[in-house]
Protein backbone atom coordinates (compact mmCIF):
# COMPACT_ATOMS: atom_id res chain seq x y z
CA UNK A 1 0.00 0.00 0.00
CA UNK A 2 1.42 3.36 -1.02
CA UNK A 3 1.48 6.01 1.68
CA UNK A 4 0.31 9.16 -0.06
CA UNK A 5 -1.62 11.09 2.57
CA UNK A 6 0.49 14.21 3.04
CA UNK A 7 -1.09 14.84 6.45
CA UNK A 8 0.10 11.52 7.87
CA UNK A 9 3.50 10.65 9.25
CA UNK A 10 5.95 7.83 9.70
CA UNK A 11 8.15 7.18 12.74
CA UNK A 12 11.88 6.73 12.45
CA UNK A 13 13.74 5.21 15.38
CA UNK A 14 17.17 6.77 15.71
CA UNK A 15 20.09 5.18 17.52
CA UNK A 16 22.28 7.46 19.62
CA UNK A 17 25.97 6.80 20.00
CA UNK A 18 27.45 7.19 23.48
CA UNK A 19 29.10 10.43 22.44
CA UNK A 20 25.85 11.89 21.08
CA UNK A 21 24.01 10.98 24.28
CA UNK A 22 26.76 12.40 26.47
CA UNK A 23 26.72 15.70 24.59
CA UNK A 24 22.93 15.87 24.42
CA UNK A 25 23.00 16.12 20.67
CA UNK A 26 20.19 15.84 18.18
CA UNK A 27 19.96 12.94 15.73
CA UNK A 28 22.96 12.58 13.52
CA UNK A 29 22.89 14.07 10.05
CA UNK A 30 22.27 10.85 8.16
CA UNK A 31 19.86 9.25 10.62
CA UNK A 32 17.06 9.62 8.06
CA UNK A 33 18.87 8.20 5.06
CA UNK A 34 19.37 4.51 4.21
CA UNK A 35 22.86 3.12 4.80
CA UNK A 36 24.64 1.39 1.89
CA UNK A 37 23.42 -1.98 3.26
CA UNK A 38 19.78 -0.88 3.28
CA UNK A 39 19.31 -1.23 -0.50
CA UNK A 40 18.22 2.44 -0.71
CA UNK A 41 15.22 1.82 1.55
CA UNK A 42 14.80 3.51 4.92
CA UNK A 43 12.84 1.51 7.49
CA UNK A 44 10.11 3.47 9.27
CA UNK A 45 6.81 2.73 11.04
CA UNK A 46 3.49 4.03 9.69
CA UNK A 47 2.16 6.22 12.49
CA UNK A 48 -1.56 5.28 12.26
CA UNK A 49 -0.64 1.60 12.83
CA UNK A 50 1.60 1.94 15.88
CA UNK A 51 2.47 3.97 18.97
CA UNK A 52 5.91 5.34 19.87
CA UNK A 53 6.09 2.83 22.72
CA UNK A 54 5.26 -0.12 20.46
CA UNK A 55 7.80 0.98 17.87
CA UNK A 56 10.56 1.29 20.46
CA UNK A 57 9.61 -2.00 22.10
CA UNK A 58 9.87 -3.81 18.77
CA UNK A 59 13.45 -2.48 18.55
CA UNK A 60 14.01 -3.84 22.05
CA UNK A 61 12.90 -7.26 20.85
CA UNK A 62 15.29 -7.18 17.89
CA UNK A 63 18.82 -8.58 17.93
CA UNK A 64 21.70 -6.18 17.41
CA UNK A 65 23.85 -7.21 14.44
CA UNK A 66 27.00 -6.05 16.20
CA UNK A 67 26.51 -7.49 19.70
CA UNK A 68 24.21 -10.47 19.04
CA UNK A 69 22.14 -9.34 22.07
CA UNK A 70 18.71 -7.73 22.25
CA UNK A 71 18.88 -4.02 21.47
CA UNK A 72 18.34 -1.56 24.28
CA UNK A 73 15.22 0.44 23.34
CA UNK A 74 16.47 3.33 25.48
CA UNK A 75 19.40 3.80 23.08
CA UNK A 76 16.81 5.03 20.56
CA UNK A 77 14.56 8.04 20.11
CA UNK A 78 11.46 8.36 17.95
CA UNK A 79 11.08 11.06 15.31
CA UNK A 80 7.95 11.69 13.28
CA UNK A 81 8.46 12.51 9.61
CA UNK A 82 5.57 14.02 7.67
CA UNK A 83 4.79 12.08 4.49
CA UNK A 84 4.03 15.23 2.50
CA UNK A 85 7.37 16.72 3.55
CA UNK A 86 9.27 13.58 2.55
CA UNK A 87 7.53 13.41 -0.81
CA UNK A 88 8.62 17.01 -1.57
CA UNK A 89 12.15 15.71 -2.18
CA UNK A 90 12.86 14.54 -5.70
CA UNK A 91 15.30 11.96 -4.31
CA UNK A 92 12.47 10.14 -2.54
CA UNK A 93 10.90 7.78 -5.02
CA UNK A 94 8.19 6.13 -2.95
CA UNK A 95 6.82 5.49 0.54
CA UNK A 96 4.84 2.32 1.14
CA UNK A 97 3.64 -0.08 3.81
CA UNK A 98 5.78 -3.22 4.07
CA UNK A 99 4.32 -5.24 6.94
CA UNK A 100 6.62 -7.73 8.64
CA UNK A 101 4.72 -10.85 9.70
CA UNK A 102 7.04 -13.66 10.72
CA UNK A 103 5.57 -17.14 10.67
CA UNK A 104 6.55 -19.23 12.52
CA UNK A 105 7.83 -16.65 15.06
CA UNK A 106 11.59 -16.16 15.15
CA UNK A 107 13.63 -14.89 18.08
CA UNK A 108 14.78 -11.35 17.39
CA UNK A 109 12.30 -10.76 14.55
CA UNK A 110 9.05 -9.42 15.98
CA UNK A 111 6.02 -8.91 13.78
CA UNK A 112 5.62 -5.32 12.68
CA UNK A 113 2.31 -4.47 11.00
CA UNK A 114 3.38 -0.82 10.79
CA UNK A 115 6.71 -1.42 9.04
CA UNK A 116 7.08 0.79 6.00
CA UNK A 117 9.82 1.80 3.60
CA UNK A 118 10.92 5.14 2.25
CA UNK A 119 12.66 4.43 -1.03
CA UNK A 120 15.47 6.80 -1.99
CA UNK A 121 17.06 7.51 -5.34
CA UNK A 122 20.80 8.08 -5.25
CA UNK A 123 21.64 11.46 -3.72
CA UNK A 124 24.33 13.41 -5.55
CA UNK A 125 27.25 14.25 -3.27
CA UNK A 126 26.81 17.98 -3.78
CA UNK A 127 23.15 17.74 -2.70
CA UNK A 128 23.74 15.55 0.33
CA UNK A 129 24.49 18.20 3.00
CA UNK A 130 21.43 20.20 1.96
CA UNK A 131 18.94 17.31 1.84
CA UNK A 132 20.16 15.62 5.00
CA UNK A 133 20.21 18.91 6.92
CA UNK A 134 16.61 19.71 5.91
CA UNK A 135 15.31 16.29 6.93
CA UNK A 136 17.31 16.39 10.17
CA UNK A 137 15.88 19.80 11.09
CA UNK A 138 12.33 18.69 10.20
CA UNK A 139 12.78 15.67 12.47
CA UNK A 140 14.20 17.67 15.36
CA UNK A 141 11.02 19.73 15.42
CA UNK A 142 8.94 16.55 15.56
CA UNK A 143 10.63 14.45 18.20
CA UNK A 144 8.12 12.12 19.84
CA UNK A 145 8.32 11.35 23.54
CA UNK A 146 7.57 7.79 24.62
CA UNK A 147 6.60 6.54 28.06
CA UNK A 148 9.69 4.60 29.27
CA UNK A 149 7.73 2.31 31.61
CA UNK A 150 5.38 1.30 28.80
CA UNK A 151 8.35 0.72 26.51
CA UNK A 152 9.92 -1.62 29.08
CA UNK A 153 6.67 -3.51 29.62
CA UNK A 154 6.04 -3.98 25.90
CA UNK A 155 9.66 -4.91 25.25
CA UNK A 156 9.48 -7.70 27.82
CA UNK A 157 6.20 -8.89 26.33
CA UNK A 158 7.60 -8.97 22.77
CA UNK A 159 10.78 -10.72 23.92
CA UNK A 160 8.79 -13.37 25.81
CA UNK A 161 7.18 -14.59 22.61
CA UNK A 162 10.18 -16.91 22.08
CA UNK A 163 10.69 -18.02 25.68
Amino acid sequence: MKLNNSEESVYRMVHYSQRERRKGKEPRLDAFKPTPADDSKLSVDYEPKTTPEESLARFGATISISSGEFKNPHDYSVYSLNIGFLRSFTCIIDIYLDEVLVSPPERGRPDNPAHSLVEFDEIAEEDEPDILYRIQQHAIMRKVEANPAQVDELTMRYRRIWD
Partner: protein
Amino acid sequence: MPAIPAIQSYSTFNFPLNAYTKTCEASESRPVKSLLAIVKEKYIRDLNINLADQKEYQLNGRLTEIYSEIIGSQELLTYHTGWDDENAQPTDFPTFAKAINFLVEYSNYICDSFLYKLQTPFINIMGDGSVYIQWNDERAAFTIIFKKSDRRLSYYFREEKETQLTTKGAIINDKPLDTYLASWFKDFLALPL
Protein backbone atom coordinates in the same frame (compact mmCIF):
# COMPACT_ATOMS: atom_id res chain seq x y z
CA MET B 1 56.21 44.34 -1.09
CA PRO B 2 54.95 40.76 -1.04
CA ALA B 3 53.53 39.37 -4.24
CA ILE B 4 49.76 39.35 -4.45
CA PRO B 5 48.63 35.72 -4.27
CA ALA B 6 46.98 34.29 -7.34
CA ILE B 7 43.25 33.84 -7.16
CA GLN B 8 41.78 30.48 -8.00
CA SER B 9 38.14 30.15 -8.92
CA TYR B 10 36.26 26.94 -8.28
CA SER B 11 33.04 25.22 -7.36
CA THR B 12 30.12 26.49 -9.36
CA PHE B 13 26.92 24.52 -8.91
CA ASN B 14 23.31 24.73 -9.96
CA PHE B 15 20.84 23.12 -7.64
CA PRO B 16 17.22 22.21 -8.20
CA LEU B 17 15.84 22.98 -4.75
CA ASN B 18 16.67 26.66 -4.63
CA ALA B 19 18.28 27.19 -8.04
CA TYR B 20 20.99 29.18 -6.35
CA THR B 21 24.35 29.53 -8.07
CA LYS B 22 27.48 30.35 -6.15
CA THR B 23 31.04 30.98 -7.27
CA CYS B 24 33.80 30.91 -4.68
CA GLU B 25 37.30 32.20 -4.87
CA ALA B 26 40.25 31.02 -2.87
CA SER B 27 43.56 32.63 -2.15
CA GLU B 28 46.53 30.34 -2.61
CA SER B 29 48.36 31.62 0.42
CA ARG B 30 47.47 32.62 3.94
CA PRO B 31 47.21 36.39 4.25
CA VAL B 32 49.62 38.28 6.44
CA LYS B 33 48.43 38.41 10.05
CA SER B 34 47.39 41.72 11.45
CA LEU B 35 49.87 43.43 13.76
CA LEU B 36 47.34 43.28 16.59
CA ALA B 37 46.97 39.54 16.11
CA ILE B 38 50.73 39.08 16.25
CA VAL B 39 51.00 41.15 19.44
CA LYS B 40 48.14 39.24 21.06
CA GLU B 41 49.61 35.90 20.11
CA LYS B 42 52.73 36.70 22.11
CA TYR B 43 50.69 36.35 25.25
CA ILE B 44 48.75 33.26 24.32
CA ARG B 45 50.32 29.88 23.75
CA ASP B 46 49.05 27.76 20.92
CA LEU B 47 47.19 24.58 21.80
CA ASN B 48 48.94 21.52 20.44
CA ILE B 49 46.80 18.76 19.02
CA ASN B 50 48.44 15.43 18.45
CA LEU B 51 45.77 13.75 16.40
CA ALA B 52 45.71 10.02 17.15
CA ASP B 53 49.53 10.15 17.39
CA GLN B 54 49.66 10.59 13.63
CA LYS B 55 49.40 14.27 12.83
CA GLU B 56 50.03 17.46 14.74
CA TYR B 57 48.13 20.72 14.63
CA GLN B 58 48.48 24.01 16.42
CA LEU B 59 45.36 25.86 17.42
CA ASN B 60 45.25 29.46 18.62
CA GLY B 61 45.28 29.42 22.42
CA ARG B 62 41.99 31.32 22.58
CA LEU B 63 40.08 28.50 20.92
CA THR B 64 39.81 26.26 23.95
CA GLU B 65 36.24 25.06 23.25
CA ILE B 66 37.11 24.04 19.70
CA TYR B 67 40.22 22.35 21.07
CA SER B 68 38.05 20.33 23.49
CA GLU B 69 35.67 19.34 20.69
CA ILE B 70 38.55 18.13 18.52
CA ILE B 71 40.10 16.18 21.36
CA GLY B 72 36.73 14.60 22.28
CA SER B 73 35.91 13.77 18.67
CA GLN B 74 38.90 11.42 18.42
CA GLU B 75 36.56 8.89 20.04
CA LEU B 76 35.02 8.52 16.56
CA LEU B 77 38.19 6.77 15.41
CA THR B 78 37.45 3.94 17.85
CA TYR B 79 33.98 3.14 16.45
CA HIS B 80 33.92 -0.30 14.83
CA THR B 81 31.61 -1.74 12.18
CA GLY B 82 28.07 -1.85 13.58
CA TRP B 83 28.59 1.06 15.97
CA ASP B 84 24.93 2.01 15.44
CA ASP B 85 23.60 -1.48 16.40
CA GLU B 86 23.18 -2.12 12.67
CA ASN B 87 25.76 -2.07 9.92
CA ALA B 88 27.34 1.39 10.17
CA GLN B 89 30.91 1.58 8.95
CA PRO B 90 33.92 2.93 10.87
CA THR B 91 35.72 6.03 9.68
CA ASP B 92 39.45 6.13 8.97
CA PHE B 93 42.25 8.48 9.88
CA PRO B 94 42.59 10.29 6.50
CA THR B 95 38.85 11.12 6.49
CA PHE B 96 38.90 12.29 10.09
CA ALA B 97 42.07 14.33 9.50
CA LYS B 98 40.43 16.12 6.53
CA ALA B 99 37.68 17.32 8.83
CA ILE B 100 40.03 18.39 11.61
CA ASN B 101 42.31 20.15 9.13
CA PHE B 102 39.34 22.18 7.88
CA LEU B 103 38.27 23.17 11.38
CA VAL B 104 41.77 24.09 12.54
CA GLU B 105 42.53 26.13 9.42
CA TYR B 106 39.33 28.16 9.45
CA SER B 107 39.17 28.74 13.18
CA ASN B 108 42.84 29.84 13.29
CA TYR B 109 42.40 32.11 10.30
CA ILE B 110 39.27 33.77 11.68
CA CYS B 111 40.96 34.26 15.04
CA ASP B 112 44.25 35.54 13.63
CA SER B 113 42.93 37.72 10.82
CA PHE B 114 39.66 39.11 12.19
CA LEU B 115 40.11 38.67 15.94
CA TYR B 116 36.89 36.70 15.98
CA LYS B 117 36.24 33.40 17.68
CA LEU B 118 34.47 30.74 15.63
CA GLN B 119 31.69 29.03 17.52
CA THR B 120 32.22 25.44 18.53
CA PRO B 121 30.70 22.99 16.05
CA PHE B 122 29.78 19.34 16.52
CA ILE B 123 32.06 16.81 14.80
CA ASN B 124 30.34 13.51 14.13
CA ILE B 125 30.45 10.32 12.10
CA MET B 126 27.98 9.07 9.47
CA GLY B 127 26.78 5.54 8.79
CA ASP B 128 29.09 5.17 5.77
CA GLY B 129 32.16 6.24 7.78
CA SER B 130 32.16 9.82 6.48
CA VAL B 131 32.72 12.62 8.99
CA TYR B 132 30.67 15.80 9.15
CA ILE B 133 30.99 19.09 11.00
CA GLN B 134 27.89 21.04 11.88
CA TRP B 135 27.15 24.48 13.27
CA ASN B 136 23.58 25.50 14.01
CA ASP B 137 22.52 28.58 15.93
CA GLU B 138 19.95 31.35 15.72
CA ARG B 139 21.87 33.26 13.03
CA ALA B 140 23.05 30.54 10.69
CA ALA B 141 23.68 26.87 10.08
CA PHE B 142 26.54 25.21 8.25
CA THR B 143 27.02 21.52 7.48
CA ILE B 144 30.02 20.05 5.66
CA ILE B 145 30.58 16.38 4.86
CA PHE B 146 34.02 14.81 4.45
CA LYS B 147 33.39 11.61 2.54
CA LYS B 148 35.24 8.45 3.43
CA SER B 149 37.13 8.43 0.15
CA ASP B 150 39.94 10.29 -1.54
CA ARG B 151 37.53 12.76 -3.15
CA ARG B 152 39.07 16.14 -3.98
CA LEU B 153 36.05 18.14 -2.89
CA SER B 154 33.99 18.25 0.28
CA TYR B 155 30.53 19.68 -0.08
CA TYR B 156 28.71 21.97 2.28
CA PHE B 157 25.32 23.58 2.80
CA ARG B 158 24.76 26.79 4.68
CA GLU B 159 21.71 28.77 5.70
CA GLU B 160 21.35 32.33 6.92
CA LYS B 161 18.33 32.15 9.19
CA GLU B 162 17.05 35.74 9.02
CA THR B 163 16.97 35.98 5.23
CA GLN B 164 16.58 32.22 4.66
CA LEU B 165 19.32 32.54 2.06
CA THR B 166 20.85 29.14 1.41
CA THR B 167 24.03 28.26 -0.40
CA LYS B 168 25.64 25.06 -1.54
CA GLY B 169 29.32 24.87 -2.26
CA ALA B 170 32.50 22.92 -1.87
CA ILE B 171 36.00 23.26 -0.55
CA ILE B 172 39.05 21.67 -2.09
CA ASN B 173 40.53 19.31 0.48
CA ASP B 174 44.11 19.99 1.51
CA LYS B 175 44.22 23.31 -0.34
CA PRO B 176 44.54 26.79 1.18
CA LEU B 177 41.34 28.00 2.70
CA ASP B 178 38.66 29.95 0.88
CA THR B 179 38.86 33.47 2.28
CA TYR B 180 35.29 34.27 1.19
CA LEU B 181 33.98 31.32 3.15
CA ALA B 182 36.11 32.36 6.13
CA SER B 183 34.54 35.84 5.95
CA TRP B 184 31.09 34.25 5.94
CA PHE B 185 31.98 32.28 9.06
CA LYS B 186 33.18 35.47 10.70
CA ASP B 187 29.93 37.27 9.83
CA PHE B 188 27.52 34.50 10.83
CA LEU B 189 29.09 31.93 13.13
CA ALA B 190 31.75 33.83 15.08
CA LEU B 191 31.91 36.47 17.78
CA PRO B 192 34.52 39.18 18.43
CA LEU B 193 37.26 38.18 20.84
